[in-house]
């Protein structure tokens, strides 16, 4: 088997192995189904409740992507500001760190007071949890210009705007796209947390409902759905990263 085929198969095999361990473990130790159902049993409700799961998953996906889109816009803006200006960095960074340290679960009730139950707290939580890695990465990409290149550029008497547009931003793009992969999975964490606390729709809400009526199988089906959406989005942004910043992956693949 060739190296590339093996690499391509590896994630599937690893996932299958995990599922197998889980399945066999549950059967060997005869774990009660309402504590930890086997994966095969968790698949059943995916069919049984396909309509409800689909309906709620689409809702969660929208909420997540909306929050994530906000995070991309604000993350880029703040990242550029803190990366390009030492003053902005000094002023804003401590605040960002403090903000990022607050558990987002603690914010949801406040968001509910402001905007009521529904999609809005989900969008905002997804936004709040996912914009920090984007800011940090963009700022790092811009601020870590090689000193020699900086000298070459400065000796030309350029405008700051030109340096930012022609060198800083392109240079930050690999960092930016790398952070998107992480940020989008975090956005799912945010929206699902919010739905479990203060939702009336979405996968998180579905799981809370299911758990309060001890339908453990449905809870696990919900978890699998969230995981699948997370992997899907990660893969999408990983692909986008390769497309947009192929030059940063030199050697790994020829540029198109």
């Amino acid at each position, binding site marked *: 088997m060739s190296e590339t085929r093996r690499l391509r198969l590896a994630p599937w095999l690893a996932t299958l192995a995990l599922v197998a361990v889980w399945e066999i473990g549950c059967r060997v130790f005869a774990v009660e189904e309402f504590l930890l159902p086997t994966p095969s049993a968790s698949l059943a409700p995916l069919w049984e409740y396909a309509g409800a799961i689909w309906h709620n998953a689409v809702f969660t996906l929208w909420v997540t992507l909306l929050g994530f889109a906000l995070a991309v816009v604000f993350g880029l803006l703040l990242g550029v500001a803190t990366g390009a200006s030492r003053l902005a960095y000094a002023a804003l960074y401590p605040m960002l760190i403090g903000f990022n340290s607050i558990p987002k679960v603690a914010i949801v009730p406040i968001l509910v007071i402001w905007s009521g139950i529904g999609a809005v707290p989900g969008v905002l939580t997804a936004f709040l949890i996912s914009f920090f890695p984007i800011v940090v990465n963009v700022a790092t990409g811009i601020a870590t210009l*090689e000193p*020699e*290149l900086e*000298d*070459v*550029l*400065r*000796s*030309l*008497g*350029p*405008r700051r705007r*030109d*340096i930012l547009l*022609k*060198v800083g931003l*392109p*240079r930050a*793009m690999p960092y930016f796209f790398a952070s998107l992969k992480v940020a989008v999975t975090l956005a799912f964490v945010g929206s699902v947390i919010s739905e479990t606390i203060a939702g009336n729709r979405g996968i998180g809400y579905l799981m809370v409902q299911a758990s309060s009526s001890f339908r453990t199988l449905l809870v696990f089906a919900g978890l699998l759905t969230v995981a699948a959406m997370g992997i899907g989005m990660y893969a999408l942004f990983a692909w986008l990263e390769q497309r947009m*910043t192929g*030059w*940063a992956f*030199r*050697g790994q693949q020829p*540029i198109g």
Partner: protein
Amino acid sequence: MALIEAERVALRYGGPAGTLALEDFSLTVEPGEFVALVGPSGCGKSSFLKVVSGLHPVSAGSARLHDAPIAGPQHGIGMAFQNATLLPWRTTLENVLLPLEVSRDHRATFRRKRAEHEARAMALLRTVGLAEFRDHAPFQLSGGMQQRANLCRPLVHEPEILLLDEPFAALDAFTREELWGVLQDLWTQRRFTVLLVTHDLREAVFLADRIHAVSRRPGRIVKTRAVDLPRPRTLATTFEPAFVDIVHELRDEISRVRQA
């Protein structure tokens, strides 16, 4: 009138207790000269280039360009360093064009004169033998090819002065000697003024009209040696007794400086 005139320059990094990189450093360069600076590591050679390019103000003494004090980045100066600082997302040609896009003197007219600029860049790339690689990305070039492109970039806006900080230090001996020839050709064609910092004494003797040896930190010039070997110099020149004598003379001087 001298082009560059440094008189008793001192340069200190950081506050009054900071590192004193240069002290009593005096040097005059005439237009069109090729001048080399050699000296022990950390003696302030790169710092002097920063003074000339206006990237660092002097702490004492005076540094003048065209008889005007150097304050801030100057017009008509190009720089190249040991590491080829090409932008990986730009092609070779786009990299060479970068100074025209951002420099104070050219950015306003860059788009309008694009064809003219490209012709200028291509002429440089042809001289260094990179014409066919205009549309290649830097990582598709070898180290030596990257360094050649890196030599073209500061020349594209036709600066009066070219500052080179160990431009060939990261290359293998063969490529390095080949690029001496390339640089000599460029200089002969265009007659810009060169200030070259190098650790390689043969490189200095091959290229320069005049070589200055710098003392240990704080740096100042302790010896000046004119090189009157005929040009164009070739690899054969490097085996001639006159060439070898100058190299030895400089080597002795530097080891004396290092032990002092």
